[in-house]
């Protein structure tokens, strides 16, 4: 921390470049610590820390555990196939809802983020149904974004009858970006003049590699809506437009702070909060 503090003081003279570099360095320290913690958890049986198969009793120890962790742990697979009632959506249900919505089609003026005819798929969720019983047919909401009219489109799908019950649209509301949108936002930032700091930090963190693709980064997208929070004048279109901020990490490496940058997917521009 001490050296990094020194960096920040020089950053005051050297502008944003030094500041982002300092953040990357700070993040590097954090990433190392997290890796060490994972090793401590998983060494006993060599299982992967993230989603690997686990046997009962695999929890042999956390760092400094007293043996209580040896209590048997059971695992239950995600539900599969068609369902009734109100449990988790299955992969098959999500796929079916998406294809029913797609088959229903969209008006000709609808556009995806890439500008092709159609609507950009965002998410699928179960309809809130307080009166649902164990036999209630599954009704699902499929969310799309129509870049042609900058509007959110919700199709309510009955999975039992295979019909789209209703379609609702609204402007000015911006749910979380899909992974595709997040990648597109990162691609825009990488190419943009404002991406210079990101490219430089990436090179510094990877011993000189060139950042050309979002695939080189671990990304988490956030929607940004000036209607919901403060935003500088240059970003006041966000909310009407679909805008995305990014948490960015070098794959297997440090964080690079990009949360200042706002990528407008509706008009393909990049702006800054500060």
């Amino acid at each position, binding site marked *: 921390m001490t050296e990094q503090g020194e960096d920040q003081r020089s950053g005051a003279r050297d502008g944003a470049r030094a500041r982002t570099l300092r953040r990357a360095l700070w993040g590097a320290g954090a990433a190392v610590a997290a890796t060490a913690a994972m090793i401590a958890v998983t060494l006993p049986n060599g299982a992967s820390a993230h989603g690997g198969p686990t046997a009962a009793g695999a*929890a042999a120890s956390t760092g400094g555990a007293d043996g209580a962790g040896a209590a048997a742990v059971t*695992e239950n697979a995600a539900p599969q196939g068609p369902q009734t009632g*109100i449990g988790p959506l299955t992969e098959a249900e999500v796929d079916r809802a998406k294809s029913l919505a797609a088959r229903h089609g969209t008006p000709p003026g609808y556009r995806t983020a890439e500008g092709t005819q159609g609507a950009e798929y965002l998410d699928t969720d179960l309809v809130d149904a307080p009166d649902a*019983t*164990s036999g209630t047919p599954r009704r699902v909401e499929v969310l799309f974004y129509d870049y042609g009219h900058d509007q959110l489109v919700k199709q309510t799908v009955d999975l039992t009858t295979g019909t789209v019950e209703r379609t609702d649209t609204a402007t000015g509301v911006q749910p979380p970006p899909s992974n595709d949108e997040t990648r597109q936002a990162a691609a825009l930032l990488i190419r943009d003049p404002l991406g210079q700091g990101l490219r430089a930090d990436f090179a510094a963190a990877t011993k000189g590699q060139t950042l050309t693709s979002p695939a080189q980064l671990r990304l988490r997208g*956030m929607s940004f809506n000036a209607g919901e929070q403060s935003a500088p004048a240059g970003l006041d279109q966000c909310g009407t437009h679909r805008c995305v901020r990014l948490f960015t990490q070098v794959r297997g490496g440090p964080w690079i702070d990009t949360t200042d940058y706002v990528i407008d997917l509706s008009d393909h521009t990049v702006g800054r909060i500060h």
Partner: protein
Amino acid sequence: MNILDARRALGATSALLLLPALFTGTLGGTAAAAARTAPAAVRRTAPAPAPCGTARPITRTLPSGTRWTMCWRMSGTKGLVLEKISYQPKKEPRPITVLASAALAQVDVPYDSGSVEYNDLSDIGFGNTAVDIGPSECPGGSIGSAYIPQQGQNVKALCVTTAPHGYAYRSDVTDAHGNPKKYTAQGSDLVVFSVSQLGWYEYVTQWNFSDDGTITAKVGATGDLSPSDYSGQGTGWPIGRGDHDRATSHYHSVFWRLDFDLDGSSRAKVEQYDTKRAGQGSGSAVLKTTATPVTREVAATSALRRWWRVVSTAGRNGDQHPRSWELVQQHSDHYDAHAYTSKDLYVTQYRACEQLASGNSDPACAGRGTSVDRWVDGETLSHPVMWVNVGFHHIPRDEDQSPMPLHWQGFQLSPRDVTAMSPLTPDALSGDDGQGH
């Protein structure tokens, strides 16, 4: 926050081995088979119905005999959603339904420097960011997986386990024959949680269902302080050596949405209680408590000796008192820079499209505004939904450096007249209803 702090010891599970909770449902896996040999398992003859349909319910009978049952799923934005929550004390013939749905409704994190704000549910999503829970994080428990559409994969997103919570009660008495007798028991909780990773912050969304009927909702933040938010005097606290790295102070305003289903009916009544000084008696001050029915939508502020309860229109306890659930608030600093975070409690008429306390993006609600404060417009409450706001102003400290110790915020729902006596009352004293005073 005392109660919450007392329950922080999620990992202190050694007592689990001594007091194995019975796995009565299918979310028990192999442990359920072992538990079937326990004598208490025969107490209820009829198998529990399948309240969730094809999916596995979460259901456990705690050592004292209280059974909690609920359905669960993961929503991309809201994260863990618990539905059809029911409570069945030892001597109740049927489960008592409590909530149709209980879930987070927003986690808003603005930084004091005025530079940045994160709407963690509506902009990112707690289900979208749900991570695998490893066996060491869920000792003695069951880990449940669910498909997360945005991630395009199954995530081991749910831990269901049990944890001791210390004294249930203690009482030294003298029996009818003049012999001293001590009644005491230890309580336990069904614990249900998921974990979401939002950048460097990680959040635990947890619900504890106690054997005495208390429901505790809490969110814990851990992971790392933001590596990029440093600021000046007054908006940050020096972290690490010297006084030049001031980690920026910030807020976590957490909202929960509670859709009640008391005794199988959504037509609950809401009451506000206030206790005021009403003169001086000969021995102490006189305090008078009054009830105010909340019949229309309301945006409410906490006050000294003020509390709310949701009262069943469909069920009474053995004393013929209407069953109710009391909102028990712990300390909260509401964030006064947004309208919607400025109040501690909202009660609105149910609408399916109103799910998030801010940034509510459902197009079916277009034109109604996107935050809960906008929905309070005097509508009559026939199906009340409660929105509980708990704010925590986080001024970082040296101890919060990586990994940051969990800081919790939450509230409780406690049963008020749901049963004629506590479900934990020992059998020898259960005939004392109405005799004890």
